[in-house]
């Protein structure tokens, strides 16, 4: 298909976002911005891996945070028990991925027998069981309160990557070359690699098969695709990637708890991001994650300002009160599903089709 003007717009936006993320530590030299950038990287991967399921294959799962959590808790527990070291990160990550694969295979095999909507409910049930387990096994998981631990020394803010003559940490464009910077680039690089892998998969012949299964399962079976095998495969694949993303996030945050890695609220965030960005296109994941994370961190401030600015008008300030930001997000979400069912990326890309 010939590219549309919309597609070109979207791809340009991608390049801009990639560049912004790449140079984030230098462009935005405040602490919150770096947190936001790292979170965006992780969520791009997480959302993209979820999009493999929901957007490409048409599988609705509510267990995606569960896999994210396996990865996060794997690394977190290993780092806590074994102390800060790369061996702990590697072991934790591997265990997380392995666990994810086992659970995903088991759930995938159940999906042989039940309808899509039941599958969604089973994943919901499985996710809530794991959430409860994490809270009950508080000896190792820290329960509701979660666990704090140290990341490998390289990522400690006090670590100096390069020093000047005085032995003080070297600065480039005002940015200290310390462990925090290393940690950010660790997050950025791993996310980028995972995202590119997924991107590659979606344009491969396999990607088309996944879409075919979404469109017409019976016909895909009839022309010779073992639908169940493919479904289970993507389910495992996306679970593994979510788990990896979880491990990276755990290393970055140095804290893992139900609210950062397992809770249903994250699942809803992921859904929102997928839908806002646009299902069935990897670019959608990027757009969705960027917008939502930004909203989570900055919308409140904006609304606070708006609320003050409109203080004289009745009613408006209350609705614009910063604490009601979720309300607005919900409304925006509904409007999107209503008017742009393909999300921002999907809608843009369908625009201005070239003759």
């Amino acid at each position, binding site marked *: 298909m010939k590219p549309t003007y919309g597609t070109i717009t979207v791809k340009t936006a991608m390049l801009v976002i990639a560049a912004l993320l790449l140079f984030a530590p230098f462009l935005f030299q405040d602490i919150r911005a770096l947190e936001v950038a790292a979170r965006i990287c992780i969520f791009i991967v997480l959302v993209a891996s979820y999009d493999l399921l*929901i957007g490409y294959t*048409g599988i*609705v799962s509510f267990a995606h945070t569960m896999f994210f959590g396996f990865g996060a808790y794997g690394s977190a527990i290993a780092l806590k028990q074994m102390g800060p070291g790369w061996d702990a990160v590697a072991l934790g990550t591997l265990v997380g991925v392995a666990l994810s694969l086992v659970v995903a295979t088991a759930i995938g095999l*159940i999906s042989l*027998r*039940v*309808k*899509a*909507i*039941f599958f*969604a*409910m*089973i994943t*919901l*049930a*499985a996710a*809530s*069981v794991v959430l*409860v387990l994490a809270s009950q096994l508080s000896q190792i998981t820290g329960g509701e309160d979660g666990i704090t631990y140290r990341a490998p020394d390289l990522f400690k803010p006090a670590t100096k990557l390069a020093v000047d003559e005085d032995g003080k940490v070297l600065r480039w464009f005002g940015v200290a070359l310390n462990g925090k910077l290393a940690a950010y680039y660790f997050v950025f690089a791993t996310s980028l690699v995972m995202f590119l892998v997924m991107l590659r998969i979606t344009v491969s012949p396999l990607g088309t098969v996944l879409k075919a299964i979404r469109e017409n399962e019976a016909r895909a079976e009839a022309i010779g695709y073992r639908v169940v095998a493919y479904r289970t495969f993507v389910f495992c694949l996306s679970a593994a990637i979510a788990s990896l993303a979880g491990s990276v996030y755990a290393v970055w945050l140095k804290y893992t708890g139900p609210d950062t890695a397992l809770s249903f609220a994250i699942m*809803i965030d992921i*859904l929102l991001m997928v*839908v806002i960005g646009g*299902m069935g296109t990897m670019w959608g994941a990027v757009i969705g994650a960027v917008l939502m994370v930004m909203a989570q961190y900055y919308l409140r401030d904006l609304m606070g300002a708006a609320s003050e600015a409109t203080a004289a008008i009745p009613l408006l300030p*209350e609705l614009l009160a910063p604490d*009601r930001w*979720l*309300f607005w*997000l*919900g*409304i925006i*979400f*509904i409007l999107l*599903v*209503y008017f742009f*069912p393909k999300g921002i990326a999907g809608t843009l890309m369908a625009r201005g089709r070239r003759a």
Partner: protein
Amino acid sequence: MTNLSETLGRWGGVNLLPLALAAVAFVLIGAPSSWVTLTVAGLSMGMMVFLMASGLSLVFGLMDVLNFGHSAFISFGAFVAATVLAALSTWLDGGWMLASAALALALLAAIAFGLAAGLFFETVIIRPVYRDHLRQILITMGALIVSEQIILAVWGGTPVSVPRPAFLEGAWIVGDVSMEIYRLFAVALGLAVFAGLMVLLNRTRIGLLIRAGVENREMVEALGFKINRLFIGVFMLGSALAALGGAMWAGYETLITPALGGEMMIVVFIVVIIGGLGSIDGTLLGAIIVGLTANYIGYLAPKLALASNMILMMAILMWRPSGLRPAVK
């Protein structure tokens, strides 16, 4: 094997499940008074969940709409009823006539609110996404977020206490057996609603029309029916049932928070799935089974209480992949 299942089928098939459950529990529990107490508690719990779940099942079974926002109606019903009861708290202390009038008003207010909210929800939120499950899940999730925020804005985040008429307080004690009066009331109301729904669906053409409309709206229109009005009607009914369920639940909980609907949602979903999505009798069956199991397991093996619903659901889905009594599709 086939003989056995046929005989069972003649005796009621899966409908016997609750009886079997109760029989096994009787043996395991040993103490008859505890068994009766638990059984009544389980049944009534099931009935209250049924009230909440029936609307979801109805809307799914007839309209093929998966409403994740259903829990918002439950919460709204609870808060509306609580507000009315609080406003009429003087009536509650003024003899049983006035007290029951207050209760009736509270339930009616919840129902009225459910009807109005259902009307709004159907026309604004659901109408554009009929037949598209994925978008239904998403848009109703969005509606859920918005509704929860509205509840937070209106009623605040702190728990609200729910006064209830004195004649529903306390328990009815027979020997060592105690049965909460409020629960018995819930059972009665649940049965009445069940009977009403069965008549509506099986004795009128409405059920048929709506099922047909779900499959092919245009064709029903082409046969001369205004399908929109019917759909709105069903949706309003479903929402009203949810609100009624929420109101009853508020009276049971006596202290409610905006999280109420969300907390009930998982069990509501489990019930609807166990029963077989979309059938009212299946929902009742599922609700009773869930209610009974929760109480029996809670007594016999409290450690398992948490997972009992999930295990129950998985087991039933393994045995019957589309639930116990799926709507004929």
